């Protein structure tokens, strides 16, 4: 392979070999498939329509090593990040590697599996679904995860089973001597009429450079229901490129809420694919960024059958010279009649230098559908600030309350009290930086 060509694949930014590491046949097969795709797919540039607005420098100016070679720090005490509601339903991954001591799984309803992938490769659901749902065209990131992962999360909820306690998937990243990559992986299989709540969290414990490339796959059988909260609090120097995808059978419900607070570069590409009639799904997002953070959401709501209901409210607050990008596609196939889909992107710009690109996009081939979309970019209204201030609130407090009000709706959909509280604290922290 020529020097030039090499520079153009994802592997150019990786130091060392990305070799199949999976200990089972099923994972190794995915590793190899990923490796092949990686070698033949060019790394995106600004010339690619879907990457026009985003500056990928945070990735391309670095070289990332595997966690084993990075000289990572010990994890220490992270119990402050445990959720009281999920004390016995928690899996912890440190720098992408499963940590059994910090994890705690007990008291699950009969038959429910919440465990690591490597220990469950013989499970029928892993054999039939792992690596089959992810589907991103001309992509280098999902294949990178495919090529590099050897473990991850496996959740299986049997028929008619409800898991009451939220399941907390906690990915923490520690400081390291070298910039490293991590490829968290999650497979969720919800059998008919099962139900659960997943809190997927990514936390950078330090301020180091790393590349976090998670892939999550949700296979949702008839009538199954998932509430999926994703909280991204990576290190402010990290890059996070994620591929969460869900495949929905008849009457399935999948509601996802992605909260972006951390990372220097965040690119999220949620996709929900309707695999049968009468599904209901949500792809909400809340982005709070400042400094030189970039947060980019490219989502697809793919309606392929009739009678689907979907909803996307994507809210962004942008301060300093941060940059928010939104491209939300709603696809409605020719025979997918009676689709009711709503999409809205609302941006609150707090600074002159902040930047927002937004492009809601409808591609509708059916004729009997109800689809609406819209985007707004606004600032805090001076009249609102003055009104609050005239009542005695300081200007700072007035602005804080207004940003809080803007973000509140998204936070309130978390449904897990400690998570809501933690996010409200984050919102207050965001509006209260002392250097403002």
């Amino acid at each position, binding site marked *: 392979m020529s020097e030039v060509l090499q520079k153009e694949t994802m592997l150019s930014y990786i130091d060392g070999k990305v070799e199949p590491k999976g200990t089972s046949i099923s994972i190794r097969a995915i590793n190899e498939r990923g490796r092949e795709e990686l070698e033949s797919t060019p790394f995106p540039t600004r010339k690619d329509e879907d990457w026009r607005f985003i500056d990928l420098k945070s990735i391309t100016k670095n070289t990332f090593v595997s966690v084993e070679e990075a000289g990572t720090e010990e994890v220490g005490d992270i119990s402050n990040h445990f959720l009281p509601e999920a004390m016995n339903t928690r899996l912890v991954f440190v720098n992408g590697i499963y940590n059994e001591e910090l994890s705690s799984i007990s008291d699950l309803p009969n038959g429910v599996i919440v465990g690591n992938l490597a220990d469950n490769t013989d499970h029928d659901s892993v054999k039939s679904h792992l690596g089959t749902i992810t589907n991103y065209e001309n992509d280098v990131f999902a294949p990178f995860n495919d090529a590099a992962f050897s473990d991850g999360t496996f959740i299986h909820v049997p028929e008619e089973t409800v898991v009451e306690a939220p399941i907390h998937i906690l990915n923490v990243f520690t400081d390291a001597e070298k910039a490293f990559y991590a490829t968290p992986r999650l497979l969720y299989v919800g059998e008919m009429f099962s139900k659960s709540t997943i809190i997927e969290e990514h936390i950078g414990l330090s301020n180091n450079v790393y590349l976090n490339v998670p892939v999550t796959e949700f296979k949702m059988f008839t009538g199954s229901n998932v509430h999926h909260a994703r909280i991204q609090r990576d290190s402010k120097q990290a890059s996070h490129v994620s591929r969460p995808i869900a495949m929905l059978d008849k009457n399935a419900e999948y509601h996802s809420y992605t909260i972006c607070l951390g990372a220097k570069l965040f690119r999220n590409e949620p996709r929900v694919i309707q695999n049968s009639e009468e599904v209901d799904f949500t792809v909400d997002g809340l982005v709070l960024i400042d400094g030189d953070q970039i947060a980019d959401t490219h989502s697809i709501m793919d309606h392929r059958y009739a009678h689907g209901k979907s909803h996307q409210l994507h809210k962004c607050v942008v301060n300093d010279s941060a940059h928010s990008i939104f491209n939300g596609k709603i696809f409605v196939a020719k025979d997918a009649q009676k689709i009711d889909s709503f999409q809205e992107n609302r941006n609150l710009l707090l600074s002159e230098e902040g930047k927002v690109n937004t492009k809601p996009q409808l591609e509708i081939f059916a004729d009997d559908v109800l689809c609406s979309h819209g985007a707004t970019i606004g600032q805090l209204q001076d*009249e*609102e600030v*003055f*009104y609050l201030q*005239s*009542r*005695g*609130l300081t200007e700072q407090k007035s602005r804080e309350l*207004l940003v*809080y009000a803007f973000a509140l709706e998204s936070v309130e959909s978390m449904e897990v009290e400690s998570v809501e509280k933690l996010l409200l604290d984050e919102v207050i922290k965001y509006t209260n930086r002392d250097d403002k």
Partner: protein
Amino acid sequence: MLEIKNLHAVVEGEDIEILKGVNLKVNAGEIHAIMGPNGSGKSTLSKVVSGHPEYEVTEGQILFEGEDITELDADERAHLGLFLAFQYPVEVPGITNKTLLREAYNTIARANEREELDPLEFEDYLESKLDVIEMKDEFLSRSINTGFSGGEKKKNEIFQMAVLDPKLSFLDETDSGLDIDALKIVSDGVNKIAGPEKAMVLITHYQRLLNYIKPDFVHIMMGGKIIKTGDFSLAEQLEAHGYDELQKEFSLNGAQ
């Protein structure tokens, strides 16, 4: 209590002078009314007094209880006991009335080294003020003014005034948009709040409000100035003859 001396104000960053030398003195226990044609500067005066950053004072002074407050921020003036009931109350989606009032009440209490109220105490305190203006308590948990009818917004301003208990209040056309029953309720509320230690400045176009809340002084504002001051009879005169006559009298007197 309040003394405004030769107040000139322009729109910040522009050359348009709106207040052109306002003089006004308000003592504790007094009720003043300011009347005047559209665009004469009444709302601007109330906003400049409460510290709106959109306007810049170019000349003159605002004294409150002897202290020069001309350069203070709006919240600092509120802490001293100033209140403005807006002509157009602002809708603030996402923040409830209760949240605003608790935050405001406690901030003012803190600034004055008074005891703050915890959420439960504040709840009781709020409940006790609902009667003043016959306000339904469901309004407490609604977003500030959001989706309120015109009359409800005005009532909400007076409710806020009752809760925050200011020393001096400017009520900018609080009567506009109120039906006759609401006007009576609001006026009763204002009268309950008024007292020997309080002062009020009512901005209005209509004598009907002044039938319910008797002013001690009536001022006529025109062209960014107070051109005439009198008692209640001035409002009656105005109601009968309009501003034209005053305008004539004013120019005949040679005032500029």
